């Protein structure tokens, strides 16, 4: 049992009809060009993310989940459909949607941990000077890196770098935090620990996060809502609830087994073992 309670408090949950979605993705088709092909990454994908959701995009490689996240980030305009955040169409990258990437080089190597967070706050115009510094330190403490605040990124381990990136993202206090397989490059033990830490952070601040992963256990553990995408091109297959416990349903199937069947039914070969993690 994890040290915190993730079960949904039914009494506190809002009525669906009252709640306004924070992020709306409507019939979004995404295409990008490679050297000789025009690739359709997703086809008419729709979903709604509500405040304080831990919304997971899950699917095998080629389902366009990362591309979808980039589109929400404003890096890629949809060829069809629209993406709106608080009713405003997303047209370009902005500090109201902060990305946390998988790659460790997302930290600026020429800035210390603290400067990396301050940089984000200052160049986006959120905070200046002392206020920025204080906010940065507060979030660095949240991810337990206060001791390393003045270290340069290259002296940190992969897990620590990802923690800095998460602290930087959270310090921005964005409307939605976009996480693109942030733990995929970490070893299994660190990964597990980071997942628990992320949940703990969520317990503290209830931020909204859109989380991309190809790992079923990670999706089940992290998400309260999981969007399953099928590949080539990415289309919505299902949207499921999770309470982090991987419970069995009335038919006696675990959530992770259900997801596994949905993603791989009618498919002889399993692409990209989705079972680890």
């Amino acid at each position, binding site marked *: 049992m994890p040290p915190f309670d993730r079960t949904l408090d039914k009494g506190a949950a809002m009525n669906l009809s009252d709640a306004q979605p924070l992020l709306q993705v409507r019939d979004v088709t995404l295409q990008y060009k490679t050297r000789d092909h025009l690739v359709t990454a997703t086809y008419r994908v729709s979903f709604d993310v509500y405040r304080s959701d831990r919304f997971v995009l899950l699917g095998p490689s080629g389902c366009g989940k990362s591309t979808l996240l980039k589109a929400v980030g404003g890096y890629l305009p949809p060829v069809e459909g629209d993406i709106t955040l608080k009713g405003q169409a997303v047209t370009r990258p*902005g500090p109201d949607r902060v990305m946390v*990437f998988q790659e460790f080089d*997302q930290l600026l190597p020429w800035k210390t941990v603290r400067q990396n967070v301050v940089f984000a706050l200052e160049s*986006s115009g959120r905070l200046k000077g002392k206020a920025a510094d204080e906010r940065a330190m507060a979030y660095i403490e949240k991810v337990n890196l206060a001791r390393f605040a003045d270290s*340069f990124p*290259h002296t940190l381990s992969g897990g620590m770098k990802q923690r800095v990136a998460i602290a930087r993202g959270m310090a921005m206090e964005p409307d939605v935090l976009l996480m693109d397989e942030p733990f995929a490059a970490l070893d299994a033990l660190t990964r597990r620990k980071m997942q628990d830490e992320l949940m703990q952070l969520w317990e503290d601040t209830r931020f909204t996060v859109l989380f991309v992963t190809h790992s079923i256990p990670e999706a089940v553990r992290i998400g309260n809502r999981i969007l399953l995408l099928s590949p080539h091109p990415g289309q919505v297959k299902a949207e499921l609830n999770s309470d982090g416990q991987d419970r069995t349903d009335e038919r006696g199937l675990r959530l992770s087994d259900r997801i596994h069947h949905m993603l791989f039914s009618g498919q002889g070969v399993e692409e990209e073992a989705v079972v680890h993690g």
Partner: protein
Amino acid sequence: MANDTVLRPEYVRDQVQEHDFGVVQKPLTPWDRLYGNGYFRKGVILLVLAAIWQAYASYLNNPLVLPTFLATLQSFIERVASGELVGKAWVSIKVLLQGYVIGMALALLLTVLAVATRIGNDLLETLTAMLNPLPAIALLPLALIWLGLGNPSIVFVLIHAVMWPVALNTHSGFLGVSNTLRMVGRNYGLSGLGYVRQILIPAAFPSILAGLKIGWAFAWRTLIAAELVFGTSSGSGGLGWFIYENKNTLDIPAVFAGLFTVILIGLLVESLIFRTLEQRTIRKWGMQHG
């Protein structure tokens, strides 16, 4: 197959306490520490080279062709003491710095244009492809016609010598900046010059520094060559002129002393300025190792 494995009992061990095992770290021997010092290693190389020079020149015994290292050193010390070499070097360095700084600024302008617009990119690629292979000194006759006999002509060829290699390196550095960093920069609302200054330049700094070093070397060569060809304009020539003058009077040790000064300034700039810059930037940031 599972039956083929050898069955062994499991065991669990307690960790050995830190004070129970001996030395984990031990200091390096003096020799290891000395050998680990780059200045020491390079100093040894220089001493060996000087010794070979001295030995060969003594064997040759013809000061008109190759004066000994000690004779060169003596001439060097005399000329430095009289202030002549220092003055000439200063004249050279002043001109050099003008060309270097303007060349650098133009290179930066060109590369910023190149990353900002597609036409700027084409412009940079075309110009560097055309002009980079052109020896700067080949432009000197033209420069003399356009700008007259004087420092402006030399500064002009220096700019040409510095600009293209610096632009080429900076540009390839900019192109090599990882997509993740670019996206991070845009995520936090950076664009235009802020984006170049806060993301591209520091991220491409290893390449930029390499370009600056190459540019520095090209500038030195071009300057000395230009002074040799063209001599002096405003009464007090630079190091190239010093070398040329002393060759005319067959004071070969002084010629060598002039060359020696060029080398010495090169070494100093490399080991003091560029090295310090490297250590304070890309090494500290973990972008360069070794």
